[in-house]
């Protein structure tokens, strides 16, 4: 596994939650900056998988932080801050993705995917194929695959984020994986089968 998503310790989370309702503007700003720095990369990874392209993922990420900063003073800490933020990110990313699909129907072009490492030409093709295959999945399947691909999230956390029981998470992941593999196979050019 590549580097795990940075996490906030419970103690630091409490300090930050106290700071966001502070009467001192500098303390509030510092808390926002810290939250942005800790969560921006894992949330971006999630948004990218759910949205399918970088520009839409960036918009979704920004909306996520807007929603989080707006609602943070009223956050009652029944759940972990990270779980709540991932829930908001999934919601925003799926909304942006749906809007993007809707706009594409109205005639907008699709942005090509960022290439994978290695030979740029071959890797870009693979990257595009992956994005197309992910795009063919249902929102539920895309969400579960994306959350598992974000490092550092356990299946319990993913269950909490999506609001589904743990047992359902595994069966949903398995079904999503099968669908993704089938989409990739269907997308593969016939010449590759002969090699």
């Amino acid at each position, binding site marked *: 596994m590549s580097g795990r998503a940075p996490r906030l310790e419970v103690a630091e989370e409490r300090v930050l939650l106290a700071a966001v309702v502070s009467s001192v503007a500098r303390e509030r700003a510092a808390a926002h900056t810290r939250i942005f720095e800790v969560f921006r990369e894992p949330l971006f990874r999630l948004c990218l998988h759910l949205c399918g392209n970088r520009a839409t993922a960036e918009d979704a990420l*920004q909306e996520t*932080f807007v*929603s989080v900063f707006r609602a943070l003073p009223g956050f009652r800490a029944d759940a972990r801050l990270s779980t709540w933020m991932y829930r908001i990110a999934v*919601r925003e990313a799926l909304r942006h993705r749906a809007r993007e699909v809707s706009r594409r129907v109205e005639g907008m072009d699709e942005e090509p995917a960022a290439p994978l490492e290695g030979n740029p030409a071959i890797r870009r093709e693979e*990257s595009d194929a*992956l994005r197309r295959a992910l795009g063919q999945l249902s*929102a539920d399947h895309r*969400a579960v695959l994306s959350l598992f691909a974000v490092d550092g999230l356990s299946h319990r956390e993913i269950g909490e984020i*999506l609001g589904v029981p743990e047992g359902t998470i595994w069966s949903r992941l398995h079904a999503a994986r099968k669908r993704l593999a089938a989409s990739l196979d269907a997308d593969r050019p016939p010449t590759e089968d002969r090699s």
Partner: protein
Amino acid sequence: MTSCHDFEVAIEQRLHGALDAEAAVRLAHHLTSCQACRAFEAQSRELEQAMRTHATNAIGDVDWNRLGRDLERWKKQMRAGAWKGLAAVIVAAPLLGLVFGYGTIATSVVAGLAVVVWGRIVAHRSIAEAREVEHAPGSLLVLLRTQLDRLIRTEKQNALVLPFFTLIPLYGLLTADELTPWRIAGAAMLVLLLVALALRSRFVLLPRLLRERAELA
């Protein structure tokens, strides 16, 4: 675990460090004799790695400073939003008074303030939505679809109700003491605005929301 399907789920669990020792032994034993499950495991690892690599590479292209600046700009806009609304009321009320008679300035101010309050309610609703995510029982996807359904209902209502609001400026014209060009132009602009908003709801926003709903289905 008896079937390949069960072992495939176990492979997913092992991949994510959630398989207990006993099940891991059974899986290892099964993998020695099942080519299909070995292929599934290799493919799962490969796909997961491809997704991570795809995201990691894209992260390098993100301009975090720009995103940070945009967030700061949004915070400033939020603080300035209410004042902008009040300023718009102060500017618009005399203009409406010019069109509908100075006796209507008070009504215009009240209507303008109502618009500002409505804007604040909409802003608070989005905060409530973010909070709802914290406490909502059940699936997040179900919650998202419910929110979208609410928006669809609102746009359907707008498409139906807004045309009726055109009766207000028309009533203003019918009951006016004198039909000046300014008055007629003002009323016509209001009617056009309301009709445009209704048409936008019916033919732009509603189809878009229905497509979004279908995408989330």
